């Protein structure tokens, strides 16, 4: 192998899908290369075949998927032709992988030190003392505090970001030529994501590792990539230097993807003077776990949160996991009773009403949930789901169905599709159905709880547009819960920033983004990937 040759050369790779799918190949005729010290991002939406490509390199494809053509050369050696034994020898030494879910990728019953040590034991003859020294050294290099303590801990005792560092440590401990990172930051909060991206970049620069980085997020691409490979439905549609692809995308799909990334620059902010639709005052939620002995544990999920939404206005709650944003939304929706505070809609307090007294007010507030695959009853037609609410409140079947047909058209679906079951719709279509179901109740307030988070950017954009459209049409007050500052910038008139159960800042969106007052808000905005590159500003 020549020292100038690529670390990884994928050449005409095709991987066959098992029969019965909508296409014959997961990837087809895929070719690209990763040079030493280069970060290549393979980017695409779900189903593009980007992860299949990554797993093919490691030889870790599920048995149902078979590479049927092409070659994958790691430092000149075709790994597709390698024996299982040879593949095992290469893994961990010449190529290593970091996965998406740091929560599940580490063995919960083994100590962290042992899990890194495992790589050394498999591939080296080092004695225990040498191995221990190497483990501690790599933990130190990952900028983990107190490597000794971390090495002796179990995975559940450290945070998600730390776990991903451990995964990187185990991958890098033998200095592989190629590091494959499969959406390594997707499951992490935005501030943690920024740190992990920095770490990967640092590792790669210092050690000259070639990195194959799989992602769906053009923001991340802008942060980290030297070169970009864009995949769509198993094919490469575009490839080039990161700056070129980001600034001057050639293929229409790439243009669409980049264009769909919401901008961090807030859209035109409206000043809403309409009457108040909902006034939540001092909302708090406390969990108490009673205990026979000792003190009861008290967890404050949310504390004295004030939120006011006017008719026709969108108010966003942004925050990372554990910030309490979803708790607040669920309290306002009365899916759980708040421990304290009042929810005025707008003149009656529904915070403490019993279910029976609450029922008449139920239809005023409706929710669109995050997971489009679980928010519709799989056993009932979408029509039945949409008309359920109106019929509960006395609308007859014919009228409710007629209205459901109108709503289907309104959300961009065929009225005849009412007779279909949820599994016959894509994720984005289901989210449209969920919106139609909420609208069927003729609500005044719509709560969107991470309603676009599970969707690909292109679909995300359509659903956001739909939300704006129905807001105008029905003069809706929208409470929009999200972790994504880009999305929030595009749809919210005002935002509320939450951290650890309390509101740290709230205000008109444009002002908060232009001049964040609280350090946490600033950290959130700064951590948004691709900010310097101006992704989404096209």
């Amino acid at each position, binding site marked *: 192998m020549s020292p100038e040759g690529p670390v990884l050369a994928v050449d005409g790779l095709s991987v066959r899908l098992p029969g019965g799918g909508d296409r014959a190949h997961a990837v087809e005729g895929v070719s690209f290369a990763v040079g030493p010290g280069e970060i290549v991002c393979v980017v695409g939406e779900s189903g593009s075949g980007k992860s299949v490509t990554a797993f093919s390199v490691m030889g870790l494809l599920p048995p149902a998927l078979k590479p049927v053509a092409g070659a994958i050369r790691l430092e000149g050696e075709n790994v597709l032709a390698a024996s299982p034994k040879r593949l095992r020898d290469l893994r961990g030494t010449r190529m*290593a992988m970091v996965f998406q879910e740091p929560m599940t990728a580490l063995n919960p019953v083994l100590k962290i030190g042992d899990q890194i040590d495992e790589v050394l034991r498999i591939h080296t003859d080092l004695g225990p003392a040498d191995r221990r020294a190497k483990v501690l050294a790599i933990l130190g290099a990952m900028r983990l505090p107190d490597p000794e303590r971390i090495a002796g801990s179990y995975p559940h005792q450290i945070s998600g970001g730390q776990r991903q560092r451990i995964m990187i440590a185990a991958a890098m401990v033998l200095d592989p030529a190629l590091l494959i990172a499969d959406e390594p930051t997707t499951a992490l909060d935005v501030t943690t994501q920024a740190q992990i991206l920095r770490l990967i970049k640092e590792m790669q620069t210092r050690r000259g590792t070639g990195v194959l980085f799989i992602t769906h997020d053009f923001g991340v691409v802008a942060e980290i990539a030297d070169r970009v490979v864009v995949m769509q439905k198993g094919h490469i549609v575009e490839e080039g230097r990161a700056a070129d692809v980001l600034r001057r995308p050639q293929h229409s799909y790439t243009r669409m993807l980049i264009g769909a990334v919401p901008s961090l620059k807030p859209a035109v902010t409206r000043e809403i003077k309409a009457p108040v639709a909902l006034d939540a005052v001092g909302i708090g939620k406390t969990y108490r776990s009673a205990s026979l002995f000792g003190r009861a544990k008290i967890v404050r999920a949310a504390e004295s949160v004030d939120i006011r939404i006017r008719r026709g206005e969108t108010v966003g709650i942004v925050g990372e996991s554990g910030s309490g944003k979803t708790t607040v939304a669920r309290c306002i929706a009365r899916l759980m009773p708040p421990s304290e505070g009042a929810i005025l809609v707008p003149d009656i307090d529904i915070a403490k009403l019993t279910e029976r007294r609450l029922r008449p007010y139920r239809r005023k507030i409706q929710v669109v949930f995050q997971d489009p695959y679980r928010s519709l009853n799989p056993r009932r037609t979408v029509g039945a789901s949409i008309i359920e609410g109106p019929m509960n409140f006395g609308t007859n079947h014919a009228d409710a169905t007629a209205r459901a047909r109108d709503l289907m058209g309104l959300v961009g679906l065929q009225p005849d599709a009412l007779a279909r079951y949820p599994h016959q719709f894509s994720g984005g279509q289901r989210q449209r159905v969920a919106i139609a179901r909420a609208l069927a109740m003729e609500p005044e307030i719509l709560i969107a709880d991470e309603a676009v988070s599970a969707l690909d950017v292109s679909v995300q954009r359509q659903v956001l547009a739909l939300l704006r459209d129905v807001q105008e049409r029905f003069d809706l007050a929208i409470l929009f819960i999200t972790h994504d500052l880009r999305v929030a910038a595009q749809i919210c008139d005002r935002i509320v920033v939450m951290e650890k159960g309390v509101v740290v800042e709230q205000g008109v969106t444009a002002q908060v983004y232009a001049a964040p007052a609280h350090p946490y808000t600033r950290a959130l905005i700064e951590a948004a990937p691709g900010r310097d590159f101006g992704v989404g500003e096209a």
Partner: protein
Amino acid sequence: MAAYILRRLLATIPVLLIVAVLVFLMLRLTPGDPAAVIAGDNASTEQIDLIRSRLGLDQPILVQFGIWAGHLLGGNFGESFFFKKTVAELILGRIEPTLSLAFVTMVIAVSVAVPLGVLAAYKQGTWIDRMVMGFSVFGFSVPIFVVGYALIYVFAITLGWVPVQGYQSISAGFGGFLQRLILPAVSLSVIYIALIARMTRASVTEVLGEDYVRTARAKGQVERIILFRHALKNAAVPIVTVIGLGIALLLGGVVVTESVFAIPGLGRLTVDAVLARDYPTIQAVILLFSVIYVAINLGIDLAYSLFDPRIRY
């Protein structure tokens, strides 16, 4: 840790209390005078009167329960009028064969079932897996006494390797003890093996699909070590749990096995007591078995932390 153990111990109290209430109510649900029922069919009027006053049967039912529970806590399980002994004596005399049988069965079952289950999970979809799973369904379907008689027919009657029936105490020699216990233990272990092997296969299979197993493969680890180091330890909690819950199956099976193999243990005693309508004995055996069952499962609960560091007390 100590606080946790104490808490778990206290948590068993309501369960045992409910068992006690159920067992107590058992007699009150029988038609007729409880005193006469306790005394059995051949009792004299004086005996019945004696029982009535001793158990306070003329008092309110709560008081009766109090008296009865008080007796139990003092180790007084009542008197068997059929066997003409105190129930405590009766049980002490019969407990050794039952414990021996249960213990030997447990050893056989666990040492056979866990490797079988791991093997089936590892060789999933192959004929080995199908054999193990087939045996498991079979094990659930064959009653203990049919297995027992089949084994007796082959090994005792046709081949003459072991005695047909009977029991010999371990104090009278280990060889004879084991020779007589092996067939009953094997028959009793069949359903237990089926249960444990199935759960082992299921939980190892599940663990083998976990992300950290993929991580281990990505490190270049060989399958054998993945199986034992990564998979089995993670699969241990459900396996151990089912071993504990299976004790109920085992204790129930003892009743049948002892009858087939003429082993003079608690199981035989139970059947004899039911046939003789000797309620104090039935009550005591049920209570005893339930306490054993609850105690073993408590022990297993406490042992979870050995397998899984996430479980902290």
